[in-house]
């Protein structure tokens, strides 16, 4: 059995309901899940099964209706909004389906954004780090491009660099390749895998693509707000 502090994410009995009273509907019905350092896990399931809802909870963008959620051993239930924001900024990286860069900023600035937000002021070190990451995702030449002047695949690579700039414990990717053609999707996926192997960053990736899911270490299947299957992938 691994050390307890090896657990990057620990969920116990997580429930999430939307609405209240008559119209209240429970989307997640008691989720237990643990992710350990360096894991590269896929979260699959039919549309509407609650994958994004779960990811938003794990990403501390939303609070569960009940249940416990620990990130790096820290109990999120004990934190106020500022505390959640700080924990999120330090420990979690996001990659969204619709890349979600900020168009008023350059590629480099977008990558440095989590550091800028945390430190409050720009410094040379954060841009150096952003430059290195852009280098690693193959966009060294595009540093000074405004975000909206990049192609979809390029934007998603910038988003990956941004998700990794703070050296987070956990990267959450919600259908990161959903909007890309097969070729770009393969590139982006390969990049995620590469960072996982090199830095032992934990990844939880929502995907619809069985081909990509099969290339993960572990596949977690969510149906109607319940985990119905959770197994290691043999070939990985």
């Amino acid at each position, binding site marked *: 059995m691994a050390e307890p502090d090896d657990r990057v994410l620990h969920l116990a009995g997580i429930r999430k309901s939307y609405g209240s009273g008559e119209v209240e509907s429970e989307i997640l019905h008691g989720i237990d899940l643990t992710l350990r350092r360096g894991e590269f896990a896929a979260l699959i399931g039919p549309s509407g099964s609650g994958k994004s809802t779960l990811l*938003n909870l794990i990403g501390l963008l939303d609070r569960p209706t009940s249940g416990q959620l620990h990130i790096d051993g820290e109990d999120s239930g004990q934190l106020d909004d500022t505390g959640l924001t700080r924990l999120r*900024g330090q420990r979690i990286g*996001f990659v969204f389906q619709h890349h979600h860069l*900020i168009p*008023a900023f350059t590629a480099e600035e977008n990558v440095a*954004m989590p550091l800028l937000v945390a430190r409050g002021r720009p410094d040379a070190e954060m841009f150096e780090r952003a430059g290195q990451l852009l280098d690693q995702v193959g966009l060294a030449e595009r540093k000074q491009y405004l975000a909206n002047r990049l192609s979809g695949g390029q934007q998603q690579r910038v988003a990956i660099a*941004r998700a990794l700039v703070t050296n987070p414990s956990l990267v959450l990717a919600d259908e990161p390749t959903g909007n890309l053609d097969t070729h770009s999707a393969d590139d982006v996926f390969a990049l995620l895998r590469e960072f996982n192997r090199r830095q032992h960053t934990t990844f939880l990736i929502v995907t619809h693509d069985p081909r990509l899911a099969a290339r993960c270490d572990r596949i977690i299947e969510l149906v109607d707000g319940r985990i119905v299957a959770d197994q290691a992938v043999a070939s990985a």
Partner: protein
Amino acid sequence: MPFEWIAAVRFLREGRMQSLLIIVGVGVGVAVIVFMSALLSGLQANLIKRTLSSQAHITLLPPEEIARPQQATDTTALRLQKQAQRLRAIDQWQTLRDRLETWPEIAAVSPVASGPAFAVRGEANKAITIVGIEPERYNRVISLAERLTAGQLRVGAGEAVIGIELAKDLGAEVGDKLRLSAADGRSDTLIITGLFDLGNKGVNARNVYVGLRTAQSLLDLVGGVSSIDLALHDLDLAERLARRIAGETGLTADSWIKTNAQFVTALTSQRVSSNVIRFFIALSVAFGIASVLVVSVIQRGKEIGILRAMGATQAQMRRIFLLQGGIVGFFGSLLGSALAWSFLMLWQLLARNPDGTPMFVIGVEPGLVALAAGGASLVGILSALLPARRAAQLDPVVAIRG
């Protein structure tokens, strides 16, 4: 530059058209406010200056005596008889003069011996007021020397300075002789040494300036004065100071504010109504900024969500939008001040006296621009309060999903 500033500036720059339009909107509002303020203060300063050109800021009279009326009257003859036996003097006026001169609020002190008389020249006979003065002192209260149209301000023994209106009535010029006759048959013949125009027809027809001694003997006030005129550094303090002097000396003290009560009320109500107008302009500017920022918060929902996901706190989001309001207000005020300055230049070009000189001089003072800039920035920040709150409270989950 802090993160919030960077984001605020980038957001404004990115929303180019929106930002430009609202800055112009703020600018027009500020321009009207600055223009109105400059015009009004120029106008009022000019009116007050004209009013006070022939009046002391405070006049001290012996106790119980009624305030000296300022208007030209046909009742001078009547008063001549009534007051003939009761022209009163201020006790110990030299001591009082010297004491008042040490008060920091008081700019000048001028003792005056004045009373009714007739000016006679040939067939002409006019009711006048003899005003006996110490010329240097008096000139610091009312700039008589500057207002001479002929001759000099010389009121030695046997000399008098009269108004242009009286000169016309009597058909007299500088160098001519003039006979003054007061009550009880006291009279004196004087040479006219100068003519003045104090911008007030009554004063120009009535006042005859002579030396203090001459007046004292004509008015049977030997060694005494009938009033003391004061000039102040701050006009607005006149009424308060008058009360204080009255309290300390037992004299009657009339401030220009009291003597010109109607005029002062008119000025005040003019200021009040202009403040009301300015307030509503500021309010509509504030609503303009607020509505643009509310729209911007909605448009940027996704970006706000991303920034929150990247670890930006609610406080940071709030500040980004407050700053945008402040920046719009600040640049709007600069534009507005420049516009107001152009309006004022144009106005001065067009509003001229018949002789072509500017009606009165007004300018955009640096203080007013600084005030406008500070005020508009503050209004900008205040009007951003609501949009900033919305930005801070935006649910990142909803924002990102959209």
